Protein backbone atom coordinates (compact mmCIF):
# COMPACT_ATOMS: atom_id res chain seq x y z
CA UNK A 1 0.00 0.00 0.00
CA UNK A 2 2.84 2.34 0.86
CA UNK A 3 4.41 2.01 -2.57
CA UNK A 4 1.05 2.53 -4.22
CA UNK A 5 0.57 5.62 -2.10
CA UNK A 6 3.94 7.03 -3.05
CA UNK A 7 3.36 6.39 -6.73
CA UNK A 8 -0.05 8.04 -6.61
CA UNK A 9 1.34 11.01 -4.77
CA UNK A 10 4.24 11.46 -7.18
CA UNK A 11 2.06 11.24 -10.26
CA UNK A 12 -0.61 13.53 -8.91
CA UNK A 13 1.89 15.99 -7.48
CA UNK A 14 3.74 16.17 -10.77
CA UNK A 15 0.47 16.79 -12.57
CA UNK A 16 -0.56 19.55 -10.23
CA UNK A 17 2.83 21.22 -10.52
CA UNK A 18 2.43 21.20 -14.28
CA UNK A 19 -0.80 23.10 -13.89
CA UNK A 20 0.80 25.53 -11.49
CA UNK A 21 3.20 26.75 -14.17
CA UNK A 22 0.38 28.40 -15.98
CA UNK A 23 -1.32 30.02 -13.02
CA UNK A 24 -1.58 33.75 -12.88
CA UNK A 25 0.62 35.29 -10.20
CA UNK A 26 -0.65 34.96 -6.71
CA UNK A 27 -2.53 38.07 -5.70
CA UNK A 28 -2.64 39.48 -9.20
CA UNK A 29 -5.75 41.61 -9.48
CA UNK A 30 -5.69 41.16 -13.25
CA UNK A 31 -5.89 37.37 -13.11
CA UNK A 32 -8.78 35.89 -15.08
CA UNK A 33 -10.60 34.85 -11.96
CA UNK A 34 -10.59 38.36 -10.55
CA UNK A 35 -10.59 40.51 -13.62
CA UNK A 36 -13.79 39.30 -15.21
CA UNK A 37 -17.39 40.26 -15.24
CA UNK A 38 -18.51 37.63 -12.79
CA UNK A 39 -16.32 38.60 -9.89
CA UNK A 40 -16.60 42.31 -10.66
CA UNK A 41 -20.33 42.15 -10.88
CA UNK A 42 -20.51 40.63 -7.45
CA UNK A 43 -18.25 43.28 -5.99
CA UNK A 44 -19.71 46.34 -7.64
CA UNK A 45 -23.36 45.49 -8.09
CA UNK A 46 -24.24 43.56 -4.97
CA UNK A 47 -25.06 46.68 -3.07
CA UNK A 48 -27.30 47.96 -5.84
CA UNK A 49 -29.06 44.73 -6.42
CA UNK A 50 -29.48 43.50 -2.90
CA UNK A 51 -28.49 46.26 -0.45
CA UNK A 52 -26.35 43.79 1.42
CA UNK A 53 -22.91 45.10 2.09
CA UNK A 54 -21.39 41.70 2.83
CA UNK A 55 -20.92 40.41 -0.69
CA UNK A 56 -20.21 36.90 0.51
CA UNK A 57 -23.57 36.75 2.18
CA UNK A 58 -25.29 38.14 -0.89
CA UNK A 59 -23.63 35.72 -3.26
CA UNK A 60 -24.21 32.89 -0.84
CA UNK A 61 -27.84 33.49 -0.10
CA UNK A 62 -29.06 35.07 -3.28
CA UNK A 63 -26.96 34.78 -6.42
CA UNK A 64 -25.97 31.24 -5.59
CA UNK A 65 -28.81 30.61 -3.19
CA UNK A 66 -29.62 27.33 -4.86
CA UNK A 67 -26.15 26.03 -4.07
CA UNK A 68 -26.55 27.10 -0.49
CA UNK A 69 -29.89 25.42 -0.16
CA UNK A 70 -28.28 22.16 -1.11
CA UNK A 71 -25.37 22.91 1.13
CA UNK A 72 -27.90 22.93 3.94
CA UNK A 73 -29.25 19.72 2.53
CA UNK A 74 -25.76 18.24 2.68
CA UNK A 75 -25.72 19.00 6.39
CA UNK A 76 -29.19 17.58 6.81
CA UNK A 77 -28.17 14.51 4.85
CA UNK A 78 -25.14 14.00 7.04
CA UNK A 79 -27.37 14.16 10.10
CA UNK A 80 -29.87 11.67 8.74
CA UNK A 81 -27.06 9.49 7.43
CA UNK A 82 -25.38 9.28 10.79
CA UNK A 83 -28.65 8.45 12.49
CA UNK A 84 -29.23 5.85 9.81
CA UNK A 85 -25.80 4.31 10.27
CA UNK A 86 -25.35 4.49 14.01
CA UNK A 87 -28.62 4.91 15.81
CA UNK A 88 -29.75 1.91 17.78
CA UNK A 89 -33.36 1.96 18.89
CA UNK A 90 -35.00 0.11 21.65
CA UNK A 91 -33.37 -1.56 24.63
CA UNK A 92 -29.65 -1.31 24.22
CA UNK A 93 -28.20 -4.49 22.85
CA UNK A 94 -24.73 -5.43 23.92
CA UNK A 95 -22.28 -4.69 21.17
CA UNK A 96 -19.79 -7.32 20.26
CA UNK A 97 -16.99 -4.85 20.77
CA UNK A 98 -18.06 -2.13 23.20
CA UNK A 99 -16.01 1.02 23.23
CA UNK A 100 -13.78 1.64 26.20
CA UNK A 101 -15.74 3.75 28.65
CA UNK A 102 -14.46 6.39 30.98
CA UNK A 103 -15.26 6.52 34.64
CA UNK A 104 -18.35 8.61 34.91
CA UNK A 105 -17.78 10.73 37.94
CA UNK A 106 -19.94 13.48 39.11
CA UNK A 107 -19.45 16.59 36.97
CA UNK A 108 -16.77 18.89 38.18
CA UNK A 109 -18.13 21.93 39.97
CA UNK A 110 -15.82 24.46 38.32
CA UNK A 111 -16.56 23.22 34.86
CA UNK A 112 -20.25 23.15 35.52
CA UNK A 113 -20.33 26.70 36.83
CA UNK A 114 -18.20 28.05 34.02
CA UNK A 115 -20.44 26.45 31.49
CA UNK A 116 -23.51 27.79 33.13
CA UNK A 117 -22.04 31.25 32.71
CA UNK A 118 -20.60 30.71 29.28
CA UNK A 119 -23.42 29.01 27.47
CA UNK A 120 -25.84 31.97 27.45
CA UNK A 121 -23.09 34.19 26.16
CA UNK A 122 -22.19 31.75 23.45
CA UNK A 123 -25.80 31.50 22.41
CA UNK A 124 -26.21 35.24 22.38
CA UNK A 125 -23.10 35.60 20.28
CA UNK A 126 -24.42 32.96 17.91
CA UNK A 127 -27.60 34.94 17.44
CA UNK A 128 -25.54 38.02 16.73
CA UNK A 129 -23.48 36.20 14.12
CA UNK A 130 -26.61 34.93 12.42
CA UNK A 131 -28.41 38.23 12.41
CA UNK A 132 -25.44 40.36 11.49
CA UNK A 133 -24.37 38.35 8.49
CA UNK A 134 -25.47 41.10 6.12
CA UNK A 135 -22.96 43.57 7.47
CA UNK A 136 -20.07 41.60 8.86
CA UNK A 137 -18.53 38.19 8.59
CA UNK A 138 -21.12 35.74 9.69
CA UNK A 139 -24.33 34.15 8.66
CA UNK A 140 -26.40 31.07 9.12
CA UNK A 141 -23.67 28.46 8.92
CA UNK A 142 -21.30 30.22 11.24
CA UNK A 143 -23.96 31.16 13.74
CA UNK A 144 -25.53 27.74 13.57
CA UNK A 145 -22.25 26.05 14.34
CA UNK A 146 -21.69 28.32 17.33
CA UNK A 147 -25.19 27.69 18.59
CA UNK A 148 -24.74 23.98 18.17
CA UNK A 149 -21.43 24.23 20.00
CA UNK A 150 -23.25 25.65 23.00
CA UNK A 151 -25.34 22.51 23.31
CA UNK A 152 -22.34 20.32 22.73
CA UNK A 153 -20.53 22.16 25.50
CA UNK A 154 -23.45 21.47 27.75
CA UNK A 155 -23.34 17.81 26.88
CA UNK A 156 -19.62 17.71 27.49
CA UNK A 157 -19.76 19.54 30.75
CA UNK A 158 -22.69 17.66 32.25
CA UNK A 159 -23.70 14.64 30.26
CA UNK A 160 -25.68 13.80 27.18
CA UNK A 161 -28.87 13.23 29.13
CA UNK A 162 -28.92 16.80 30.42
CA UNK A 163 -28.41 18.22 26.99
CA UNK A 164 -31.07 15.87 25.70
CA UNK A 165 -33.56 17.44 28.05
CA UNK A 166 -33.11 20.70 26.22
CA UNK A 167 -33.04 19.28 22.78
CA UNK A 168 -34.49 15.79 22.65
CA UNK A 169 -33.85 13.78 19.53
CA UNK A 170 -37.19 14.41 17.87
CA UNK A 171 -36.96 18.09 18.47
CA UNK A 172 -33.54 18.11 16.85
CA UNK A 173 -34.93 16.54 13.73
CA UNK A 174 -37.90 18.88 13.74
CA UNK A 175 -35.59 21.86 13.98
CA UNK A 176 -33.42 20.59 11.14
CA UNK A 177 -36.43 20.00 8.95
CA UNK A 178 -37.92 23.36 9.80
CA UNK A 179 -34.68 25.00 8.77
CA UNK A 180 -34.86 23.45 5.36
CA UNK A 181 -38.54 24.27 5.08
CA UNK A 182 -37.78 27.89 5.82
CA UNK A 183 -35.18 27.96 3.09
CA UNK A 184 -37.10 26.00 0.51
CA UNK A 185 -40.24 27.82 1.58
CA UNK A 186 -38.82 31.05 0.21
CA UNK A 187 -38.29 29.30 -3.06
CA UNK A 188 -41.70 27.67 -3.12
CA UNK A 189 -43.33 30.95 -2.23
CA UNK A 190 -41.71 32.66 -5.18
CA UNK A 191 -42.88 29.76 -7.32
CA UNK A 192 -46.41 30.25 -6.05
CA UNK A 193 -46.26 33.93 -6.91
CA UNK A 194 -45.26 32.99 -10.43
CA UNK A 195 -41.56 33.64 -10.51
CA UNK A 196 -38.66 31.23 -10.74
CA UNK A 197 -37.60 29.19 -7.76
CA UNK A 198 -35.78 31.28 -5.12
CA UNK A 199 -36.44 34.55 -6.94
CA UNK A 200 -36.90 36.61 -3.81
CA UNK A 201 -37.79 39.80 -5.64
CA UNK A 202 -41.38 38.65 -6.04
CA UNK A 203 -41.70 38.27 -2.29
CA UNK A 204 -42.59 41.95 -2.07
CA UNK A 205 -46.07 40.58 -1.94
CA UNK A 206 -45.49 39.41 1.60
CA UNK A 207 -42.47 41.41 2.71
CA UNK A 208 -42.24 45.16 3.27
CA UNK A 209 -40.39 47.43 0.88
CA UNK A 210 -39.50 47.15 -2.78
CA UNK A 211 -38.07 44.22 -4.69
CA UNK A 212 -34.55 44.87 -3.49
CA UNK A 213 -35.72 45.05 0.07
CA UNK A 214 -37.49 41.77 -0.49
CA UNK A 215 -34.19 40.23 -1.49
CA UNK A 216 -32.55 41.76 1.53
CA UNK A 217 -35.14 40.43 3.94
CA UNK A 218 -35.42 37.06 2.32
CA UNK A 219 -31.72 36.56 2.70
CA UNK A 220 -32.06 37.06 6.42
CA UNK A 221 -34.89 34.56 6.49
CA UNK A 222 -32.87 32.07 4.55
CA UNK A 223 -29.90 32.51 6.86
CA UNK A 224 -32.13 31.81 9.83
CA UNK A 225 -33.30 28.65 8.15
CA UNK A 226 -29.72 27.58 7.60
CA UNK A 227 -28.95 28.33 11.23
CA UNK A 228 -31.78 26.10 12.43
CA UNK A 229 -30.59 23.16 10.40
CA UNK A 230 -26.93 23.58 11.22
CA UNK A 231 -27.57 23.95 14.94
CA UNK A 232 -29.74 20.90 15.06
CA UNK A 233 -27.57 18.68 12.95
CA UNK A 234 -24.34 19.67 14.70
CA UNK A 235 -25.80 18.54 17.96
CA UNK A 236 -27.33 15.46 16.41
CA UNK A 237 -24.01 14.39 14.90
CA UNK A 238 -22.29 14.93 18.21
CA UNK A 239 -24.83 13.04 20.24
CA UNK A 240 -24.87 10.09 17.89
CA UNK A 241 -21.13 9.84 17.59
CA UNK A 242 -20.56 10.36 21.29
CA UNK A 243 -23.06 7.78 22.44
CA UNK A 244 -22.44 5.24 19.70
CA UNK A 245 -25.96 5.76 18.49
CA UNK A 246 -27.59 4.76 21.77
CA UNK A 247 -28.34 8.27 22.97
CA UNK A 248 -27.88 7.13 26.54
CA UNK A 249 -24.65 8.46 27.83
CA UNK A 250 -22.04 10.43 26.02
CA UNK A 251 -18.36 10.82 26.64
Amino acid at each position, binding site marked *: *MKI*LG*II*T*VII*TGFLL*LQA*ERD*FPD*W*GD*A*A*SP*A*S*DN*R*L*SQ*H*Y*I*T*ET*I*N*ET*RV*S*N*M*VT*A*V*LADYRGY*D*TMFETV*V*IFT*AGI*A*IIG*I*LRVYGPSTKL*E*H*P*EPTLDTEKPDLIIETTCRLLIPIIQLFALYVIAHGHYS*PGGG*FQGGVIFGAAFILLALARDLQTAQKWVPENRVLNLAAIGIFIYAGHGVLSLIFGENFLDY*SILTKVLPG*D*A*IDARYHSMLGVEIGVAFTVTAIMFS*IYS*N*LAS*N*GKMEEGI
Partner: protein
Amino acid sequence: MELLQSIADSFNYWIYIILMMIGLYALVAKNNLVKKLIGMSIFQTAIILFYVSIGYKDGATIPILYEHQAHHGHHDAGHGDAEDAHHDVEHAVEEAAKEIHAVAEDHADGHDAHADDHDTLVDSHDAHTSSAIHAEDFANPLVHVLMLTAIVVGVATLGVGLAITQKLYGEFGSIEESEIIEQIRTGK
Protein backbone atom coordinates in the same frame (compact mmCIF):
# COMPACT_ATOMS: atom_id res chain seq x y z
CA MET B 1 17.54 30.36 -7.43
CA GLU B 2 14.90 30.69 -10.10
CA LEU B 3 13.02 27.82 -8.60
CA LEU B 4 13.10 29.44 -5.19
CA GLN B 5 11.91 32.66 -6.70
CA SER B 6 9.03 30.99 -8.45
CA ILE B 7 8.11 29.18 -5.27
CA ALA B 8 8.16 32.41 -3.35
CA ASP B 9 5.99 34.09 -5.95
CA SER B 10 3.29 31.54 -5.71
CA PHE B 11 3.86 30.28 -2.23
CA ASN B 12 0.24 29.34 -1.63
CA TYR B 13 0.06 27.24 -4.73
CA TRP B 14 3.05 25.21 -3.66
CA ILE B 15 1.81 24.78 -0.14
CA TYR B 16 -1.57 23.54 -1.24
CA ILE B 17 0.03 20.93 -3.45
CA ILE B 18 2.24 19.72 -0.62
CA LEU B 19 -0.67 19.58 1.81
CA MET B 20 -2.82 17.83 -0.71
CA MET B 21 -0.19 15.21 -1.37
CA ILE B 22 0.22 14.57 2.34
CA GLY B 23 -3.50 14.03 2.56
CA LEU B 24 -3.58 11.83 -0.51
CA TYR B 25 -0.77 9.68 0.80
CA ALA B 26 -2.60 9.14 4.06
CA LEU B 27 -5.78 8.33 2.18
CA VAL B 28 -4.13 5.68 0.08
CA ALA B 29 -1.41 4.26 2.25
CA LYS B 30 -2.59 4.44 5.87
CA ASN B 31 -4.00 1.34 7.41
CA ASN B 32 -5.83 2.98 10.27
CA LEU B 33 -9.28 4.15 9.28
CA VAL B 34 -9.21 7.25 11.45
CA LYS B 35 -5.85 8.21 10.00
CA LYS B 36 -7.36 7.86 6.59
CA LEU B 37 -10.12 10.24 7.61
CA ILE B 38 -7.55 12.70 8.91
CA GLY B 39 -5.79 12.44 5.57
CA MET B 40 -9.11 13.11 3.88
CA SER B 41 -9.57 16.25 5.92
CA ILE B 42 -6.12 17.51 5.03
CA PHE B 43 -6.79 16.69 1.40
CA GLN B 44 -9.99 18.68 1.34
CA THR B 45 -8.53 21.56 3.30
CA ALA B 46 -5.73 21.84 0.77
CA ILE B 47 -8.30 22.39 -1.93
CA ILE B 48 -9.92 25.07 0.18
CA LEU B 49 -6.54 26.76 0.48
CA PHE B 50 -6.19 26.65 -3.27
CA TYR B 51 -9.56 28.21 -3.91
CA VAL B 52 -9.13 30.94 -1.35
CA SER B 53 -5.75 31.74 -2.89
CA ILE B 54 -7.47 32.39 -6.20
CA GLY B 55 -9.56 35.07 -4.61
CA TYR B 56 -6.68 36.92 -3.02
CA LYS B 57 -5.61 40.22 -4.53
CA ASP B 58 -2.65 42.28 -3.43
CA GLY B 59 -3.83 45.14 -1.31
CA ALA B 60 -7.44 44.13 -1.32
CA THR B 61 -9.61 43.75 1.75
CA ILE B 62 -12.41 41.43 2.73
CA PRO B 63 -15.42 41.63 0.46
CA ILE B 64 -17.57 43.68 2.79
CA LEU B 65 -18.40 47.28 1.98
CA TYR B 66 -17.71 50.11 4.38
CA GLU B 67 -20.69 51.89 5.76
CA HIS B 68 -20.39 54.95 3.53
CA GLN B 69 -19.75 52.93 0.40
CA ALA B 70 -22.78 50.88 1.07
CA HIS B 71 -24.78 54.02 1.59
CA HIS B 72 -23.49 55.54 -1.62
CA GLY B 73 -24.34 52.58 -3.74
CA HIS B 74 -27.62 52.11 -2.00
CA HIS B 75 -28.66 55.62 -2.69
CA ASP B 76 -27.84 55.42 -6.35
CA ALA B 77 -29.59 52.21 -7.03
CA GLY B 78 -32.64 53.24 -5.12
CA HIS B 79 -34.45 54.31 -8.24
CA GLY B 80 -35.18 50.94 -9.72
CA ASP B 81 -36.38 47.57 -8.67
CA ALA B 82 -34.63 44.30 -9.21
CA GLU B 83 -36.11 43.83 -12.65
CA ASP B 84 -34.40 46.91 -13.91
CA ALA B 85 -31.28 45.91 -12.14
CA HIS B 86 -30.79 42.79 -14.02
CA HIS B 87 -31.91 44.12 -17.32
CA ASP B 88 -29.11 46.53 -17.00
CA VAL B 89 -26.64 43.95 -15.92
CA GLU B 90 -24.94 43.40 -19.24
CA HIS B 91 -24.67 47.06 -19.90
CA ALA B 92 -23.55 47.89 -16.44
CA VAL B 93 -20.85 45.30 -16.45
CA GLU B 94 -19.39 46.60 -19.64
CA GLU B 95 -19.39 50.04 -18.24
CA ALA B 96 -17.82 48.87 -15.06
CA ALA B 97 -15.14 47.01 -16.93
CA LYS B 98 -14.22 50.04 -18.98
CA GLU B 99 -14.16 52.13 -15.94
CA ILE B 100 -11.91 49.78 -14.11
CA HIS B 101 -9.43 49.69 -16.91
CA ALA B 102 -9.39 53.39 -16.92
CA VAL B 103 -8.77 53.46 -13.24
CA ALA B 104 -6.09 50.88 -13.54
CA GLU B 105 -4.30 52.96 -16.11
CA ASP B 106 -4.57 56.13 -14.13
CA HIS B 107 -3.59 54.60 -10.87
CA ALA B 108 -1.45 51.68 -11.75
CA ASP B 109 0.37 52.01 -8.47
CA GLY B 110 -2.51 53.14 -6.35
CA HIS B 111 -4.27 49.91 -5.50
CA ASP B 112 -4.42 50.53 -1.83
CA ALA B 113 -5.75 54.01 -2.18
CA HIS B 114 -8.60 54.70 0.17
CA ALA B 115 -12.16 54.72 -0.79
CA ASP B 116 -12.36 58.47 -0.43
CA ASP B 117 -9.98 58.87 -3.35
CA HIS B 118 -12.12 56.66 -5.46
CA ASP B 119 -15.19 58.65 -4.77
CA THR B 120 -13.71 61.66 -6.48
CA LEU B 121 -12.27 59.54 -9.24
CA VAL B 122 -15.42 57.76 -10.05
CA ASP B 123 -17.60 60.80 -9.98
CA SER B 124 -15.75 62.10 -12.97
CA HIS B 125 -16.92 59.11 -14.96
CA ASP B 126 -20.28 58.09 -16.25
CA ALA B 127 -22.84 58.79 -13.61
CA HIS B 128 -25.05 55.86 -14.48
CA THR B 129 -23.06 53.12 -12.84
CA SER B 130 -21.42 55.55 -10.50
CA SER B 131 -20.51 52.95 -7.96
CA ALA B 132 -17.83 54.01 -5.64
CA ILE B 133 -16.79 50.44 -5.42
CA HIS B 134 -13.72 49.16 -7.16
CA ALA B 135 -13.24 45.51 -7.90
CA GLU B 136 -9.55 45.50 -7.12
CA ASP B 137 -10.16 46.74 -3.61
CA PHE B 138 -11.99 43.63 -2.54
CA ALA B 139 -11.07 40.04 -2.55
CA ASN B 140 -13.13 37.87 -4.86
CA PRO B 141 -16.26 36.98 -2.88
CA LEU B 142 -17.23 34.07 -5.06
CA VAL B 143 -14.46 31.74 -3.96
CA HIS B 144 -15.36 32.32 -0.34
CA VAL B 145 -18.90 31.30 -1.03
CA LEU B 146 -17.70 28.21 -2.84
CA MET B 147 -15.40 27.29 -0.01
CA LEU B 148 -18.11 27.70 2.57
CA THR B 149 -19.85 24.97 0.66
CA ALA B 150 -16.72 22.88 0.44
CA ILE B 151 -16.16 23.21 4.18
CA VAL B 152 -19.68 22.09 4.89
CA VAL B 153 -19.26 19.16 2.57
CA GLY B 154 -15.99 18.31 4.26
CA VAL B 155 -17.59 18.35 7.69
CA ALA B 156 -20.47 16.23 6.51
CA THR B 157 -18.22 13.67 4.87
CA LEU B 158 -16.01 13.51 7.92
CA GLY B 159 -19.04 12.99 10.14
CA VAL B 160 -20.36 10.16 8.01
CA GLY B 161 -16.88 8.68 7.79
CA LEU B 162 -16.53 8.69 11.55
CA ALA B 163 -19.95 7.15 11.96
CA ILE B 164 -19.02 4.31 9.63
CA THR B 165 -15.73 3.86 11.46
CA GLN B 166 -17.58 3.64 14.74
CA LYS B 167 -19.94 1.08 13.32
CA LEU B 168 -17.01 -0.92 12.01
CA TYR B 169 -15.40 -0.82 15.43
CA GLY B 170 -18.60 -2.04 16.98
CA GLU B 171 -18.71 -4.94 14.58
CA PHE B 172 -15.08 -5.95 14.25
CA GLY B 173 -13.41 -4.50 17.32
CA SER B 174 -10.71 -2.87 15.25
CA ILE B 175 -10.14 0.17 13.15
CA GLU B 176 -7.12 -1.26 11.34
CA GLU B 177 -8.18 -2.04 7.80
CA SER B 178 -5.91 -5.07 7.46
CA GLU B 179 -7.27 -6.63 10.65
CA ILE B 180 -10.84 -6.16 9.53
CA ILE B 181 -10.11 -7.70 6.15
CA GLU B 182 -8.36 -10.57 7.90
CA GLN B 183 -11.46 -11.14 10.02
CA ILE B 184 -13.67 -11.18 6.95
CA ARG B 185 -11.34 -13.54 5.16
CA THR B 186 -11.10 -16.05 7.99
CA GLY B 187 -14.85 -16.15 7.77
CA LYS B 188 -17.01 -14.76 10.52
